[in-house]
């Protein structure tokens, strides 16, 4: 395992702090968690991770954490849990094996060593990835690809069942929530006015007040105003179509209508 190359790269990295030495200038900010601290300490032993002394490492970590705690009271729980675990590991390693369940001290130490090797391997791999051939940096793609012009024909997927379901859903939904329907009764639609005007126009050949075409049964003022507006719109539409003539003798005077003789 090439620990050297990573070491070098690591130091170049701006967010890596100086390695803690015996002088112990410690700053936790630069570490990526307790495993990272262990890895840095292990590298300080300057041996292959396979031959590392986990016991030494545990002691170094514990004194490291102690040192940090002297300087700052706050230390992330992660680091303290690791310290506790390492203290436990140390005791398992030093005391004679007892007849209880659970892994032995050696087994635990092996696991930790394995974890460290694994992290080390991933670090080295990430460095190698970056130092390899990176497209866009070491090898460039065509700067001005003409591309493929795609002529797209869309085909939509929809079954009759989908269609019916959509209609049914919509009907159902609407059926349940449409309180505004009550208002609609009061509105006299332009269509209705047009219908009425068309039917009645022939019966009254002379100039007649437009308002006489309003439906008789309207009582409330809102409906009446609505009918007046709609009837006026209807008359304008019919005048445009050449079916009738409109006149008004003065401002605000009654509007009169007459069927056009040459109208259809």
């Amino acid at each position: 395992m090439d620990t050297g190359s990573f070491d070098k790269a690591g130091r170049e990295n701006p967010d890596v702090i100086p390695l803690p030495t015996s002088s112990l200038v410690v700053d936790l900010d630069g570490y990526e968690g307790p495993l990272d601290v262990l890895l840095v300490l292990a590298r300080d032993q300057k041996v292959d991770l396979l031959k590392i002394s986990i016991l030494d490492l545990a002691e170094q970590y514990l004194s490291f954490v102690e040192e940090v705690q002297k300087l700052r009271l706050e230390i992330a729980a992660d680091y303290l849990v690791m310290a506790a675990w390492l203290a436990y590991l140390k005791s398992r390693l030093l005391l004679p094996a007892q007849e209880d369940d659970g892994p032995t001290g050696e087994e635990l130490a092996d696991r930790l060593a394995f974890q460290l090797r694994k992290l080390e391997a991933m670090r080295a791999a990430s460095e190698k990835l970056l130092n390899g051939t990176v497209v866009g940096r070491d090898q460039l793609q065509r700067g001005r690809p003409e591309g493929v012009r795609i002529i797209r024909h869309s085909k939509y997927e929809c079954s009759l069942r989908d269609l019916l379901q959509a209609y049914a859903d919509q009907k159902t939904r609407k059926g349940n929530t449409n309180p505004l329907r009550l208002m609609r009764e009061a509105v006299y639609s332009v269509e209705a006015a047009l219908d009425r005007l068309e039917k009645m126009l022939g019966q009254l050949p002379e100039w007649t007040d437009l308002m006489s075409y309003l439906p008789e049964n309207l009582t409330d003022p809102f409906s009446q105003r609505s009918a007046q507006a709609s009837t006026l719109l209807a008359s304008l539409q019919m005048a445009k179509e050449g079916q009738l003539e409109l006149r008004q003798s003065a401002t605000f005077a009654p509007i009169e209508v007459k069927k056009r003789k040459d109208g259809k």
Partner: protein
Amino acid sequence: MTVDPEHVRMAEALLFAASEPLDAATLAARLPDGADIDAVLETLEEQYRHKGVNLTRLAGKWTFLTAPDLAWMLEEERETTRRLSRAALETLAIIAYHQPVTRAEIEETRGVGLSRGTMDVLFDAGWIRPRGRRRTPGRPVTYGITEEFLIHFGLDDIKDLPGFDELKAAGLLDTEPSGIFRDLSGNDGEDEDEEDGEDRFDPEEEEA
């Protein structure tokens, strides 16, 4: 003519990676001093003359372009299947059941405005068409379904669409407490209106 093949490689890479055509001066500036840029370009032009890609001069600058006789390869026809949005599906259903129907009527039935894209999708699918104009103020365009619609949905006639009661019988309609909402639902009243509209629709105005 002796051209340093390394210079040719360099120019080739530069022209390939450049995001725009390069003129000889720019190339010369990037190549080692003393490179004979004209000879380099001439060599490259010759090398690529019969390839699928040619070194082409555009407005005095150089760039690689697909050989003109192969340009057709860069056009791809693609058919994509897409699902209709719920809005499009409902709109289509309303048009099918109520045609001819205006945009405003669709909006009223759905109780929500119709975004432009919704109708576009249905036109794109070839399922709806303008049918004519309603003889009401503003003369709004009415819409109906097309022959393709009938073919796609396997219908012989638009009247083959199941009616409201059949939908209910088929379990497609949630038969919620029907009595309570009957007055509110307004189906009766509104359908009446639309039926009138249908009658007034002037077939002569259809733009087939």
